[in-house]
C-alpha cells in the first residue's frame, strides 16, 4: 500500500475511552523515538486522537497499529486505525470540514488529513473502516 519497511510495530485495541488515551500515548512514544520535531509530534498525536475516537465512537471499537517505518532513506511513524463497524457511506462528505453524523465538530477526519503527510481512507459497509496516516521526519 505505502511500500515502506516496518522496523517496529505495536497494536493497541480501541474499545474504551482509556484505550483512546493509550493510543495517543503510544503514537507519542513512537513519534519521539523517531525524532519528529515537537510540532510534528503534536500534529501526529492530535490526528491519532481524532482517528482513535472515530474508531471507538463510529466504528464501535477496533484497533490501532503503530509502526516505526522507513522509505527511501526517510524515517517516519505510521498508524493504522481499523474497525469492523458500519463503514462510511459517503467519503467526500465525511471528509468535509464541519460535517458530522454525530454531535462532533466534524473536523476529525478532515483535520487529521491536513495534519499528516500521507493519509489513506478505506471504508466499506461490509468490512468497516481503515484509516492510515504517516508522518515523515523532516
Amino acid at each position: 500500500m505505502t511500500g515502506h519497511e516496518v522496523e517496529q510495530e505495536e497494536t493497541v485495541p480501541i474499545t474504551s475511552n482509556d484505550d483512546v488515551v493509550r493510543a495517543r500515548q503510544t503514537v507519542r512514544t513512537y513519534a519521539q523515538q523517531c525524532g519528529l520535531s515537537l510540532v510534528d509530534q503534536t500534529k501526529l498525536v492530535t490526528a491519532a486522537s481524532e482517528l482513535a475516537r472515530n474508531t471507538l465512537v463510529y466504528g464501535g471499537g477496533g484497533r490501532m497499529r503503530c509502526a516505526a517505518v522507513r522509505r527511501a532513506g526517510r524515517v517516519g511513524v505510521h498508524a493504522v486505525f481499523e474497525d469492523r463497524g458500519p463503514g462510511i457511506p459517503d467519503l467526500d462528505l465525511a471528509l468535509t470540514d464541519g460535517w458530522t453524523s454525530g454531535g462532533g465538530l466534524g473536523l476529525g477526519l478532515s483535520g487529521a488529513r491536513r495534519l499528516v503527510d500521507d493519509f489513506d481512507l478505506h471504508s466499506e459497509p461490509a468490512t468497516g473502516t481503515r484509516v492510515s496516516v504517516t508522518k515523515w521526519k523532516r
Partner: protein
Amino acid sequence: MSDRVPILRIGQVLLVSIQIDLEDQTVLDLQDDLAERIVATGAGGVVIDITALEIVDSFVGRMLANTAAISRMLDAETVVVGMRPAVAITLVELGLSLGGVRTALTLDKGLALLERDRTARTARP
C-alpha cells in the same frame, strides 16, 4: 470510573489546571462541573490552565469553546492560559481557531485580564 479534574477557587476566580491526558468522559464532566461551580460560587471568572497539555484535539477544543460560552451565559468570563506553541499551530491546522475563547500566555496574565474585566464591570453605572 473516570476521575474528576479538581476546580480550585481563588477569590472571585475558579482555577482549573489540567495535568493529565484526559479521557473524553472526564472532559465532559469538567465542562458540567465548571457550570455548576460558577453558579454555586458566583465566580466572575474561570481560568483553565493547559500548560501541561501536549495536545488539544477537537474534543477538548470543543469543551474549551463550550465552557467559554456557558460561563458567559452565567455571567462569568473564561480565559484559557498556557497554550503551547505547537498546540496553537496544530489547532489552527485542524480547523479550530477557538474564536470565542479568550486566551492569555500565562496564569498571571490570565488573572490580570479577569481583574481588569471585573474593575471595568463594577465601574459601569
